[in-house]
């Protein structure tokens, strides 16, 4: 009924008339101009911080594997140092530093300091040769330097232990025959034979780790069968006796395999022992390195850009696909990548269905009311619980209660060695699933509630049951929202470290949680994780200066991994969304 507009004139007389304000222009505030600046500024600051963080990680992380030039410096005090420059900074030296210089250079040092307003440059050289010098790094200030050069044949050796070695080749022993001579000649010999020595070493590793591991596994399995039979039917039962006999036979056979493997290993070892490289360090000391210990060696000052790029790529590949060495500060992080991805995926597989079911009940079945609201608030607040608390819960509940029960029921033969009664992949995934549950439930609920009721009604009118409607209409339509929840959970879960330290992430895992022995996925094993790896490198490492670039590089890798997982999920979501686009009336 159209009444209100026409009634207005009648009411007008009784109304208090409001005059328009005198001001000519609408105020700046009501135009909203300052709000544009405020909101835009907030966004700009937020993006600057994120970009800054990314830039920092990229700046420090990307050059880690780049082989810089090697410098050799002679100090006035007569020391010779050689190595890579790893830090350059300006500092204000104590007056005593200048006093300690020989008389002839003091004046020059003073004027240099004056020009720099009391400051001068110092560099940290990675000088390596730890077994000779007892330190990996040395500071050297410009004041101390008498001369500096980049010797052509100064060689960088990356090796399995003791960190890097810097020196000039003086002699090489190939198959027991020692040759002295020009570095260039020796180097050709080195490059000729290094690969075969390394191949033998790799074969030896394989024998030691995989094949001996397999023999041990056989013996352990037989021993467990004995124990299981004893537990099941008593120590003196026929079964136990049969199992013991069988175990005896297995052990004898294994012993034989073991001896033959040992013999092969000894042969390889002996062969490799006949290959060594002798280097002279910058201060004139000599060292003999076993060739099989050398992972990679090259003379950086001889390399052109292309060759350096080759080293860079080679090192990056090693980082991605190899196992770590030197307390994780060298080598690769493959087990950590593997552990992170596997743990995150298992977490997603656990949390998404669980979260979706919970959200479905909350949104579709539960009668709205104070209880449902309370549950919803509780779930939201779960996201605010410190993650270490989840770790404690995971350890206390999953590992020590559920895990111990599982061990008693299924792995009694192995006790007292725990199988599931300790931190492991499955418990870590479950703990993180719990942690990320709210992150899945909240967007899922939102997505469910945004499914138009006209669609539900249409489905009911066709004679669909509630569940059919949910399964065929509501869930597919809510799928992009559910994917959003999954993306958030992936990002949250992959970057989480604190709870993992309690429920299964370790510094160095002997085996991957996925391998070729049944049951293939070993959910009870502890695993390596990139986040934990970063923490370990940065805060627990002996050689923290050498580990620092690796911290950034590993962070970069973790970020890249999370971004990759997310992009994958976003791509799937975009594909789903395209299905629901169209002429929505």
């Amino acid at each position: 009924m159209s009444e209100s507009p026409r009634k207005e004139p009648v009411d007008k007389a009784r109304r208090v008339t409001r005059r328009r304000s005198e001001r000519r222009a609408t105020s700046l505030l009501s135009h909203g101009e300052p709000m544009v600046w405020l909101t835009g500024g907030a966004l700009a600051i937020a993006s600057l911080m994120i970009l800054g963080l990314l830039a920092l990680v990229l700046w420090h992380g990307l050059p880690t594997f780049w082989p810089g030039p090697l410098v050799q410096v002679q100090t006035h005090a007569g020391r010779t140092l050689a190595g890579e420059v790893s830090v350059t900074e300006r500092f204000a030296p104590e007056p005593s530093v200048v006093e300690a210089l020989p008389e002839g250079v003091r004046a020059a040092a003073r004027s240099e300091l004056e020009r720099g307003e009391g400051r001068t440059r110092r560099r940290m050289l990675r000088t390596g040769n730890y077994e000779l010098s007892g330190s990996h790094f040395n500071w050297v200030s410009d004041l101390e330097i008498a001369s500096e050069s980049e010797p052509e044949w100064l060689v960088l050796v990356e090796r399995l232990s003791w960190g890097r070695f810097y020196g000039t080749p003086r002699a090489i022993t190939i198959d027991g025959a020692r040759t002295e001579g020009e570095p260039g000649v020796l180097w050709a010999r080195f490059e000729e034979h290094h690969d075969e020595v390394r191949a033998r070493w790799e074969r030896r590793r394989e024998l030691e780790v995989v094949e001996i591991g397999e023999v041990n596994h056989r013996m352990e399995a037989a021993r467990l069968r004995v124990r299981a039979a004893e537990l099941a039917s008593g120590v003196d039962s026929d079964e136990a006796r049969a199992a013991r006999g069988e175990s005896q036979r297995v052990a004898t056979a294994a012993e034989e395999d073991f001896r033959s493997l040992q013999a092969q290993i000894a042969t390889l070892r002996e062969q490799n022992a006949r290959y060594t490289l002798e280097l002279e360090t910058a201060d004139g000391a000599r060292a003999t390195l076993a060739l099989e210990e050398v992972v990679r060696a090259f003379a950086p000052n001889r390399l052109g850009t292309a060759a350096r790029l080759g080293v860079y790529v080679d090192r990056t590949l090693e980082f991605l696909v190899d196992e770590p060495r030197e307390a994780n500060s060298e080598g690769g992080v493959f087990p950590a990548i593997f552990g992170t991805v596997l743990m995150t995926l298992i977490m997603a597989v656990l949390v998404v269905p669980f979260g979706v079911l919970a959200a479905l009940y909350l949104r579709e079945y539960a009668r709205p009311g104070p209880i449902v609201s309370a549950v919803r608030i509780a779930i939201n607040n779960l996201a605010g619980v410190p993650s270490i608390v989840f770790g404690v819960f995971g350890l206390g509940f999953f590992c020590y209660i559920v895990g111990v029960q599982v061990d008693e029921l299924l792995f009694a033969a192995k006790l007292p060695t725990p199988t599931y009664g300790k931190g492991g992949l499955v418990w870590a995934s479950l703990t993180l699933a719990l942690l990320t549950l709210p992150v899945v439930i909240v967007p899922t609920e939102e997505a469910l509630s945004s499914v138009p009721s006209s669609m539900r009604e249409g489905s009911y009118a066709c004679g669909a049951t509630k569940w059919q409607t949910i399964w065929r209409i509501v869930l597919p339509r809510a799928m992009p929202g559910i994917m959003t929840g999954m993306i958030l959970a992936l990002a949250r879960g992959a970057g989480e470290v604190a709870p993992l330290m309690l429920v299964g992430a370790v510094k160095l895992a002997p085996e991957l949680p996925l391998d070729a022995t049944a049951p293939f996925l070993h959910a009870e094993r502890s695993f390596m994780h990139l986040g934990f790896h970063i923490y370990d490198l940065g805060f627990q490492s002996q050689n923290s200066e050498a580990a620092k670039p690796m911290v950034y590089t590993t962070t970069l890798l973790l970020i890249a991994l999370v971004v990759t997982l997310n992009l994958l999920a976003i791509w799937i979501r975009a594909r789903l969304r395209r299905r629901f686009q169209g002429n929505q009336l």
Partner: protein
Amino acid sequence: MNYAPAISGHVFEAISKNEPFPAEVHASLASEAHVLEIERFDLWYGKSRALHSITLSVPRGKVTALIGPSGCGKSTLLRSVNRMNDLIDSVRIEGEMRLNGDPIYAPGQDVIELRKRIGMVFQKPNPFPMSIFENVIYPLRIDGERDRRVLAEVCESSLRGAGLWDEVKDRLNDSALRLSGGQQQRLCIARAISAQPEVLLLDEPCSALDPIATARIEDLIEELKGNYSILMVTHNMQQASRSSDFTAFMYLGRLVEYGPTQDIFLQPHLKETEDYISGRFG
């Protein structure tokens, strides 16, 4: 026009006094076979009463139009037929409805099975977020039909029935949401007829569409006539007069007059009906 309505004025008076009054039902309806019989049907939304003792029978194979001002209970009556009102907690009903003699509100009635016998098309097209094909055969899918040949056949015949086949036959696997509004509504009609319903309920099927799409739907209703028994709500007098065989005029939750469309439009028995049709109120 020298025709004068027989009775006048008693409807508003009775309503204002909240007294029951008999609906003016034309005699010619008695000779029809009825697919749906509604008897003394009342409905309350919580405390407010939306339907007052509606008694109305829908002839088989004909189009019956429900007209009346906004909020008079047309949609409510329609949604009572396939018990969509069960989904609203506050609804309470009294009275009886029978679909081909089968009591709709009998205590043991299986609502899911009942809805499969009734097709419904809503005011706003509501295709599902799936392909055109899956949309059309949705009623069969939820019924557990697996045979691809049957599904394809039903899909084609339903789309042909809804006059959409030629437009979509090459893109049955495209998302239904990408169709135009009019196409979406015809898709919903195809979906409703794919289950071979005993009665088809249309709730203002054209009110969200442009004139051309509306015309197509009206043509379609013309074609469906005879094969289907249709109960249709419409806001549009021309549509009612063009498309329907019978027209029921409702006002404030009551059935006022019900008869053959021609009679209702040209010589209604009640003055109220005439006033409404000629646009004097509503």
